[in-house]
């Protein structure tokens, strides 16, 4: 095996840090970083930069008022005048075609939008859980550590989170565990795990629950804990807390399936 030079190593760092590098080049890169102080420093800086961007860069959320205004605009039929916007925005200033465009396309969207903004989505915890599940579905590489058993997955989180995820269920034939990753849940780090249920992808997010506005959905027993169960935007969810940790299961699988998996998760603890 030829030793890797600095130029090659640096070109591979981005893919390695995003979990997109195959095993052999990754091993060669690790060997180079073990011996090259400058490249190891760059690796550390890049990781620090990624961490800073993910944890500290403001990620503004659309306000409920904007969300509602957008929905209302889309819901107003063609022959009804819309109220004038309160401020003089770029759209109005430049007469961009929102009202005209929407009028033609949206005669039948009232039901769509009323369905797409259910009460539950106004809760930040639920909204984040569903959005994070969508990120898992859309991400090219949602898993950073493949499941090789809990003895492999759980230690991987050490040093990457400020808490220990209380996962003790490593999957079974019914709910195979594919792996895990570190992500963010609203303003804090979270462990995310990906399970399968036949063709359905199920996301489990574990995060510190302190200070989060927990939704007020009705509670149902799930093994020995009380869980909040429901569905928003076509996704089922099950939320529960144990001590200071919050847990969110989200999937397009049925709520019964999620309750089954949730029971296995809490019983195995």
């Amino acid at each position, binding site marked *: 095996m030829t030793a890797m030079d600095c130029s090659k190593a640096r070109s591979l760092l981005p893919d390695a840090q995003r979990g997109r590098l195959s095993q052999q080049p990754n091993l060669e890169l690790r060997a180079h970083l073990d011996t090259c102080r400058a490249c190891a420093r760059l690796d550390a800086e890049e990781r620090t*930069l990624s961490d800073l961007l993910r944890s500290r860069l403001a990620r503004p959320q659309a306000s409920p008022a904007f969300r509602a205004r957008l929905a209302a605009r889309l819901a107003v039929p063609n022959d009804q005048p819309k109220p004038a916007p309160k401020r003089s925005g770029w759209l109005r200033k430049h007469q961009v075609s929102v009202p005209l465009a929407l009028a033609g396309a949206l005669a039948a969207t009232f039901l769509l*939008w009323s369905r797409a903004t259910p009460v539950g989505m106004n809760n930040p915890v639920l909204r984040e859980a569903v959005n994070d599940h969508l990120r898992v579905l859309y991400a090219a590489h949602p898993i950073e550590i493949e499941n090789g058993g809990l003895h492999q997955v759980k230690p991987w989180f050490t040093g990457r989170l400020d808490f220990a995820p209380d996962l003790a269920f490593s999957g079974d034939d019914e709910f195979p565990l594919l792996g895990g990753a570190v992500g963010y849940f609203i303003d804090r780090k979270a462990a995310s795990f990906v399970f399968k249920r036949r063709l359905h992808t199920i996301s489990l997010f574990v995060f510190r629950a302190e200070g989060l506005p927990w939704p007020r959905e009705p509670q149902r027993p799930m093994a020995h804990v009380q869980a909040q169960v429901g569905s928003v935007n076509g996704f089922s969810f099950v939320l529960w807390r144990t001590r200071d940790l919050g847990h969110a299961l989200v999937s397009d699988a049925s709520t019964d399936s999620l309750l089954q998996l949730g029971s296995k998760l809490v019983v195995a603890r």
Partner: protein
Amino acid sequence: MSQLEAEPDVHTVASDALAHLDALYAFACHLARDQALAEDLVQETFARCLVGGRQFTAGTNLKAWLFRILRNVFIDLRRREGRSPIRAVSDVPDASEEQVRTLEQLRGDVEIDRLRRLVAEDIQAALHALCDDQREVVLLDLEDFSEQEIAEVMGCAAGTVKSRLARAREALRARLWEYAR
């Protein structure tokens, strides 16, 4: 695949698109650096999405498609303002490879810890000091898009994304080191 899947219903596309509202809004805020303007950009993005929803190919990445629309809306805005759409010059010069290497050798773990203590305002200021195309590529990378997806959003080659991202992050690090001193 059925014909229905091949030609998606515009309402279904719009419904799915709403799930990306926060991501689109955050991207728009960092592009426009103004929340009111960001709302306008997102609003126009949804309008174009609804009008052109049938152009979306089922099974491809809806989020990337929406981000491409939003970016085009932003470029249109720049053009209306008479500004070059994405070629504004960054005020952070590129360091030569030799300079970068020398700097790296000087920095110890203690100094990297200084980077870690930077606050949100520093990170945002450094990001916003980048030129538009560099800021875009950093933000799209943060959204976990692949290089190919970023290339499709930005309308360039995947190789261009790689080099552009490397230069953007290098400029970001240079700026943040200044703040961390």
